[in-house]
């Protein structure tokens, strides 16, 4: 089964280098990658995640606005009938350590700081996704 990944940019921050490079590398690793483009609202990202029935939602932010934007994405996925507990939710960007617990509490599975090799992210998805899927059911 193909793993479908939504790579999302949320909020006003326009730094898309990381998101685009990630999208390319995930494709090369055999994933089906849906890229949202820039400046999406949490609702838009959630809607895409549900309609595209993705297995992984990857959010990239360098604006420091991960709180409240990421928890909101998760909340809207639920609101739109999706089940974030069955999806792997990962966040990458400039995320201060103090915010890690808040994101984890909101349902984020993985947090990747700048400089993380993409191979690590791929490994994380391949390892954690089956567990998450099982847990969801």
């Amino acid at each position: 089964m193909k793993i479908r990944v939504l790579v999302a940019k949320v909020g006003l921050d326009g730094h898309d280098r990381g998101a685009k490079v990630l999208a390319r590398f995930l494709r090369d690793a055999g994933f089906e990658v849906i890229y949202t483009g820039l400046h999406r609202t949490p609702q838009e990202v959630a809607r895409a995640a549900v309609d595209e029935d993705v297995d992984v939602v990857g959010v990239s932010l360098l604006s420091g606005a991960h709180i409240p934007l990421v928890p909101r994405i998760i909340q809207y996925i639920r609101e739109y009938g999706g089940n974030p507990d069955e999806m792997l939710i990962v966040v990458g960007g400039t995320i201060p350590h103090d915010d890690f617990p808040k994101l984890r509490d909101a349902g984020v599975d993985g947090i990747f700081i700048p400089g993380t090799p993409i191979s690590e992210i791929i490994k994380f998805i391949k390892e954690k996704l089956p567990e998450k899927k099982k847990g969801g059911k």
Partner: protein
Amino acid sequence: MGELTEKIREKKREWEKECLEPWLSKCEREVKNFETLSGIEISNVYDPFDIEHLDFLRDIGYPGEFPFTRGVYPTMYRGRLWTMRLFSGFGTAEDTNRRWKMLLEEGETGLSTAFDFPTLMGLDSDDPLADGEVGKCGVAIDTLKDFEILFDGIPLNKVSTSFTINPPAGIILAMYTAIGDMQKVPRDKVRGTIQNDMFKEFHAQNTIVLPPEPSLKIIVDIFEWGIKNVPKFNLISISGYHIREAGSTAVQELAFTIADGMAYVEAAMERGIDIDKLAPQLSFFFNAHNDFFEEIAKFRASRRMWAKIMKDYGAKDPRSWWMKFHVQTAGCSLTAQQPLNNIVRVTIQALAAVLGGCQSLHTNSFDEAWALPSEEAVRVALRTQQLIAYESGVANVVDPLGGSYYVEWLTDKIERLAWKYIERIREMGNGSMVKGVLKGIENGFFVREISDSAARYQREIEEGSRIIVGVNKFRIEEDLKIPLLKVDPEVQRRQIERLRRVKKERDNKVLKENLEWIRSCCENNENVMPAVFEAVKSYASVGEIMGTFKQVYGTYRKPIII
């Protein structure tokens, strides 16, 4: 001369055979092809033959003289050190004003404003799209009221201020000018810079509101107005920094920046602006990345290229040939892992900027892969510049690397590669740089070039052929809890409250007239700046003015190429 050359040539052959060859087989390093960070292949050692084709007087010369390879001023840092300008801003105007005063007390010599994302995108703090982002990544500015607080106790005739802002650049310039008037500073003493470079937003940084053509129109409006009203103010900072941050090579950074610069100058001349009037109010902004000599060569090449270009465009005043530029160390090179290593990275990068002859410099703080910098981290960043300036001795001689076989060869090489790109862009526009750049924006040329380079760089890291210390080599288990700056979550509420108060207290009739005036300028293709200036003084918000632009010109989403 001929005899000497022959002697050297003979010596070289002998050296290669008898000295070098036996050592080559003993090389222990795994690297087989040595190249610069941008992929330029480089030799083991350089000698006079590598720069044989260069002419000292034509290509290198003396600082302060055409083609300015060695610096725009004859005395460079002996006369005056570069401006130490740290990009900073967060929270409300009060928060930022406090941070600025601390920096000035610590010996900073110029201010540089970081705005929050809503302001950068021309949205008010109470816009639904701004929710969660007010004051997060910079200071929130809605109206002139915020500017009055921001510059409280900061005399505009003593300190120059740089504003990293693009779609609303004209609005910010109008606010700054208004503050100058309030402080009764003569207009020709008002110094500073607005970034105002939309082309690189389309290429790389993505702070985009209006479509390319009207964006360019407003930029030229700002030129026209600024030349008359604030003659000492840099009306644009033509930026390669963000192009590099988005993943380009040094050559692409240089080529695209210069191409953009040419397009702006051509657009201004088409409007009938005197090139010698405009030139002194242009400035540039480059990145200082990890490859020390490549960066120095890039800075030297950029000055030489721009001097030739401006001369070719018919600029008469030698000052018009100067390329003055600001440098920021590469944000994208900072690592979250082992953050103290970043201090060393920044030092090397800053040194390259100084040896490359920059006019002002921002050094990144070591904690910026995590958050906006803490006070302690900013202090170290500033001290890094002060150490270079006062302790290292590198500022004592102008262009100390001039004449280095390697640096001169690389300067020339980078220049040649950059010209190739520029020619390609000119061809896309059938001889017009304005059309070429617009075409490249429309068909995704710039974005594709940059994305491909970014992917190549990442691939090298993944494969381990490019080593990033602490990331893919020399890793440790570490406790990454470092003290970081926290922006008060109350900022958004406070900012919205202030905006509401301002909107209630201002004369809304005058305001309406001014916004109408802006609209009519847009519709009738007149210069918008006089109307923007009046609107700002009547406390129109950034969102209201940008909103008027949007109503006439529409908005724009650029083609995204992954």
